[in-house]
């Protein structure tokens, strides 16, 4: 298939179709509404279903119900809408069902603004809903990577019977880049014996997150954490960019921010100063060992984010005192410029 020029939001929609999704429910919100617009046109062409819920609260629970049938289900939203879905996400994690959510993040808190932000890191990585649960959280930094991660997100959701979140700042959703859709290598997936898809000829299955017997609930939580430990062992994803011995500073940044940092790194290289970038692709599980290794021998580590300082806590947790950890962020929809980041790095040299 020839390359197409697509907006991140359109590409995320098409990737869902290519990944076999035929159930997409959504409530529109800037800056992700083009996903809904695209899939409203495309879903009927492939015999799929796009249904606009009356709110994100409804959509979250539509996803919960549809996921219980074992079908691939998908929704997209932006920060305030994802907040409204947190109850359903907690239920889906507790009931151990696969579903994929994409959050095209805008500035908060509250209604905030409509421009790009990365201030939903805590919400997605630390559990925005109640109870002991985790989501697999994947953060693309290009439109092509958004497509590639979308193509595996549904397999990962099925593999772990767990919600997976694709998190992109507003820029990832809104910008256009050339993309192609490549089928990833097939993943060995467990049969969906848990699916409530008709019990003719077999015992009924019951899907629930309610366990009134405390020992049974504790057992369910322990099962979840066996899966999360497996994710930590098998699903850590990151990119090392210019990470080598002799790095003066290590930057940790993800998504759009990481791309800006690459421009900065090229400038420093031209000046003979070696700066490395560790770009987490999986925000949960966080690439702790890779960050720790890359931080060996540097003068300082700098976490650059479009937040007031969220991922920096995981960076500190990973670096564990090997080097001082600094933070630079812009918020509210303001995107840090290469010049600003350069100044911050110069302070650390």
């Amino acid at each position, binding site marked *: 298939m*020839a*390359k*197409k*020029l*697509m*907006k991140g939001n*359109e590409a995320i929609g*098409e990737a869902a179709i290519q990944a076999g999704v035929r159930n997409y429910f959504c409530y529109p919100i*800037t*800056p992700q509404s*083009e996903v809904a*617009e*695209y899939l409203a*046109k495309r879903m009927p062409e492939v015999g799929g279903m796009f249904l606009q819920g009356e709110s994100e609260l409804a959509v979250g629970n539509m996803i919960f119900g549809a996921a219980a049938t074992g079908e691939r289900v998908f929704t997209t939203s932006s920060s305030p809408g994802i907040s409204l879905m947190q109850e359903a996400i907690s239920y889906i994690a507790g009931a151990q069902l696969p579903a994929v959510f994409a959050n095209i993040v805008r500035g908060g808190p509250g209604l905030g*603004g*409509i*421009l790009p932000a990365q201030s939903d890191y805590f919400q997605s990585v630390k559990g925005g809903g109640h109870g002991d649960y985790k989501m697999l959280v994947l953060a693309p930094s290009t439109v092509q990577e958004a497509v590639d991660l979308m193509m595996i997100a549904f397999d990962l959701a099925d593999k772990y019977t767990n919600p997976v979140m694709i998190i992109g700042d*507003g*820029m990832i959703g*809104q*910008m*256009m*880049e*050339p993309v192609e859709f490549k089928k990833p290598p097939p993943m060995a997936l467990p049969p969906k014996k848990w699916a409530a898809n008709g019990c003719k000829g077999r015992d009924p299955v019951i899907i629930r997150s309610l366990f009134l017997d405390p020992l049974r609930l504790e057992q369910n939580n322990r099962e979840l954490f066996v899966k999360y430990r497996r994710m930590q062992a098998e699903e850590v994803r990151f990119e090392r960019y210019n990470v080598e011995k002799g790095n003066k500073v290590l930057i940790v940044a993800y998504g*759009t921010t990481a*791309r*800006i940092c*690459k*421009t900065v790194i090229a400038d420093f290289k031209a000046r003979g100063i070696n700066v490395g970038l560790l770009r987490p692709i999986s925000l949960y599980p966080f690439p702790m060992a890779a960050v720790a290794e890359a931080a060996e021998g540097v003068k300082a580590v700098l976490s650059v984010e479009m937040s007031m300082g969220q991922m920096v806590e995981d960076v500190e947790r990973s670096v564990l005192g090997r080097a001082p950890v600094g933070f630079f962020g812009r918020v509210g*929809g303001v*995107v*840090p*410029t*290469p010049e600003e980041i350069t100044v911050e790095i110069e302070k650390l040299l």
Partner: protein
Amino acid sequence: MIGLEKGVTLITGNYGSGKTEVAVNLAGLLASRGEKVTLADLDIMNPYFRCRKAAAELEALGVRVIIPREGYFFADLPIVLPEIRGAIQRRDSVFIGDVGGDDTGARILGSFADVLARNPYKLLMVINANRPFTDTVDGCLGMMDEIEASSKLAIGGIAANTHLMDETDADVVRHGFRLAAEVAEIRGIPIVLVAVAASLARELRDEPFADRLLPIERTMLPPWRRREGTGPGMFKIRQIAEL
């Protein structure tokens, strides 16, 4: 370009077809040739990449840029400024309207139907043959029908704008021109301009469409990209003979 030097030009197309870059660069080119130009933001759809961003540079060239100001600059609201009606009716300058995407964005033009009925206008459809929904002749025709139905106006010309961002080469432009030419023939309307990255213009100077090239300097770049030659000088007059 053909016949865009005077009067009212309204630029429509599907989402991401490149309407804003075409509008901004057309305004810049005409202004640098000494024309009196007004550029109006009629995009009620997309708050992210809009001609508002290029306003300062265009104003330095003497272009009158009509955009929401100050507190409304970033508003996620369908704002259409009242002075646009007046600007359309001025006969002493070129009016370029940057309209929002798809039939939904073109709906705004219906509200100017009375003014446009009294003032000659050209409604252009920007086509990028690498975009979803306009990558086939049928897709383009369908999009044109939808835009005409919602704007209550007739599309009078095509602006071919086929590219793949940084991965564009001359063949990409040629492919886009061929698709646009098929659409133009079926509809009986001209291709009035072929937009190409300024860096590709020289390579395309012997093409049959060389008389219609609009060299594009991207004004809306992501934050990790720096633009070369930033500033009012970017819209230099590029006569094809000089390329």
